[in-house]
């Protein structure tokens, strides 16, 4: 009885392991491959040096600064280690930083969908067969060329950043009854700087446009033959196809908004850097906190828009799981066999 089961198990083991038994020779790198690799290293060498000198070293220095108090004296810098005091000071004693950063998070979370949806709409309009396509593209891309901190500041000061004849106070008044205060200010500032926000969508429009142009038109024809309307085509064909671009654009927008000179936190950091009472250490701590927040925002956006696995991917994952399970079973059976063989040997002796 036991021998029968052992035989069966052995068969199964052979069956499963047969696939893996293909001879896999470890290929050694030839001289050509090695020479190519060396050439590759030489080509990217400037970048590697740059990363070490301008990314990794400053990063570690900045971390060191963040935990220290730096005094500038005529003799040089005096760095005294103070631990996490900078952070506690920023977070608990300075009222301005937490409120500013909270406002920034709200603003970004509100404007990213606006920018991305708006860019998508314009890209779809431009993707239609229209006349003067070149001229419209010229207009929508123009802001990318002129947008810069001082120019935006000048225009915003003059009130050129609001859509004319849009009554912001009315909208604010309406919202105040329904929503909490901080959200209302964020939304009203969104409306106030509507044009500026629209101006940030130039690159995104182009990215969407080139993605839209690459969609296979036969898909739409097939859908139309099956009686799909334009609305259905958008949700079932256009949107799933350009979903990776949606993610790309959203992340790009978050980064753009965060690293923008108009951003009040960036101005704050710079001010703190040269302020007598605060200095480099304080500013570094601020920058670290800020970059953590930005990274979190990027992560949130990425998770929300991450492409879900389609049926094929799910199948692959399932098969992989099954293989792993099989392999585990094989190991188990082998172990049992060995044990049983030992037992049989001992009993026959």
């Amino acid at each position, binding site marked *: 009885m036991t021998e029968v089961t052992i035989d069966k198990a052995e068969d199964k083991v052979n069956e499963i392991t047969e696939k893996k038994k293909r001879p896999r020779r470890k290929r050694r790198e030839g001289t050509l*491959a090695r020479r*190519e*690799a*060396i*050439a*590759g*290293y*030489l*080509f990217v060498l*400037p*970048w590697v*040096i*740059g*990363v070490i*000198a*301008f*990314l990794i070293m*400053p*990063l570690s*220095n900045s971390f060191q*600064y963040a935990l220290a108090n730096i005094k500038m004296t005529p003799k040089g810098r005096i760095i005294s280690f103070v631990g996490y005091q900078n952070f506690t000071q920023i977070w608990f004693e300075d009222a301005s930083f937490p409120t500013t950063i909270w406002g920034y998070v709200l603003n970004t979370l509100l404007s990213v969908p606006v920018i991305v949806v708006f860019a998508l709409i*314009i890209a779809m*309009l*431009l993707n*239609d*067969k*229209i006349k003067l396509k*070149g001229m*419209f593209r*010229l207009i*929508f891309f*123009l*802001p990318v*060329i002129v*947008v*810069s*901190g*001082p*120019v935006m*500041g*000048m*225009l915003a000061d*003059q009130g*050129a950043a609001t*859509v004319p004849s849009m009554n912001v106070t009315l909208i604010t008044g309406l919202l105040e009854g329904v929503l909490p205060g901080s959200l209302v200010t964020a939304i009203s500032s969104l409306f106030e700087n509507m044009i500026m926000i*629209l101006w940030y969508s130039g*690159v995104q429009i182009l*990215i969407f446009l080139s993605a839209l*142009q690459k969609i296979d038109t036969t898909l739409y024809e097939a859908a139309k033959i099956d009686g799909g309307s334009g609305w259905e085509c958008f949700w079932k064909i256009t949107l799933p196809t350009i979903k990776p671009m949606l993610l790309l654009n959203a*992340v790009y927008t978050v980064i753009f908004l965060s*690293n923008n000179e108009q951003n009040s936190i960036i101005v704050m950091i*710079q001010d703190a*850097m*040269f302020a007598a009472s605060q200095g480099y250490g304080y*500013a*570094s701590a601020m*920058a670290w906190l*800020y*970059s953590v927040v930005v990274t979190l925002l*990027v992560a949130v956006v990425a998770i929300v828009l991450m492409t879900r696995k389609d049926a094929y991917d799910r199948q692959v994952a399932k098969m992989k799981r099954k293989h792993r399970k099989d392999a585990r079973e094989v190991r188990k059976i082998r172990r049992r066999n060995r044990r049983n063989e030992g037992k049989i040997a001992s009993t026959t002796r």
Partner: protein
Amino acid sequence: MKGKSQAQLDRLKRYLSHPSVNKEKIRKFFLGSKEKNGFIKQLIVYGLLICIGFVYLYPMLYMVSKSMMDLDDLLDTSISWIPSTFNVSNFTQAATAMNYVKTLFQSILVAGLPTLLNVTVCSVIGYGFARFEFRGKKIMMGLLIFSFILPPQITMMPTYVMFSDYGLVGTLKAFLIPSLFGQGLKCQIFILIFYQFFRQVPKVLIEAAQIDGAGYFKSFLRIALPSAAPAILTVFLFSLVWYWNESYLTELYVTGIANKTQMGSLSTLVVQLKNFATSYSSAQYTGGVTQNNNESIQMAATLLSILPVLIMYFILQRNFVESIDRTGITGE
């Protein structure tokens, strides 16, 4: 007479029985058919495009219109768009205050030299990533993306300290040295553009060159680089525009914000615009300008500072917009 009217009547009858404009045609005209979009849809599309286009252009139009107004026009509430006289004095005042000609050349220098370096270095690095396989490439690419996401403020302070230790702050070298090592302004994007582009260059072509005796660098210079003209153009234009518009880092590194006494050694138009109020009042003090600062002059200064890039954009706009498509910035 009677015959004529009879003929007319006949025509009318024929027309009524087979009208050239029937219900079907009207429907087709407004709602469209399979081949052609209907009138209503076209109306909506063009209407939307024109409305949004106007909103996009509104600040620019506002700027142009305001910059030409003199003080009377500004105060006159009946004038909102078209100034009563074409007024150039705003521009001359703003130009004197900004020291326009000198600053323009300095801006071209400050934006142009790092851009040239960016193009050269990023193309080499992008080729290295695209063409060769070596250990650690994936980690390096990950680091590249990471450095794009990271806010520049975090590395700004130590870099500033380093530059000031070596005495680079206040000179153009503070921009040139990072871009020499592929760490200039938004260099990550440029490296990625070149990476995407060089991956599309068939490997066989380069291997053929190598069989004919070209070394790695020669085959890059002779085969890969000439075919990358669109990518080079894209990187050149964007780098130029981004350096031109960068005021924060320029002010920090090149003009030197900490020691104001050194200010003025190198400056750009955008930085001048940022500090326009102070520079205008100092120009007024020395007698360079006569008028008081007002919004017209500010708008004139804004227009003057972006005019060079605007002109470049209108000349090269086709390259600007289409190059993004060709270089595959979107990343397949």
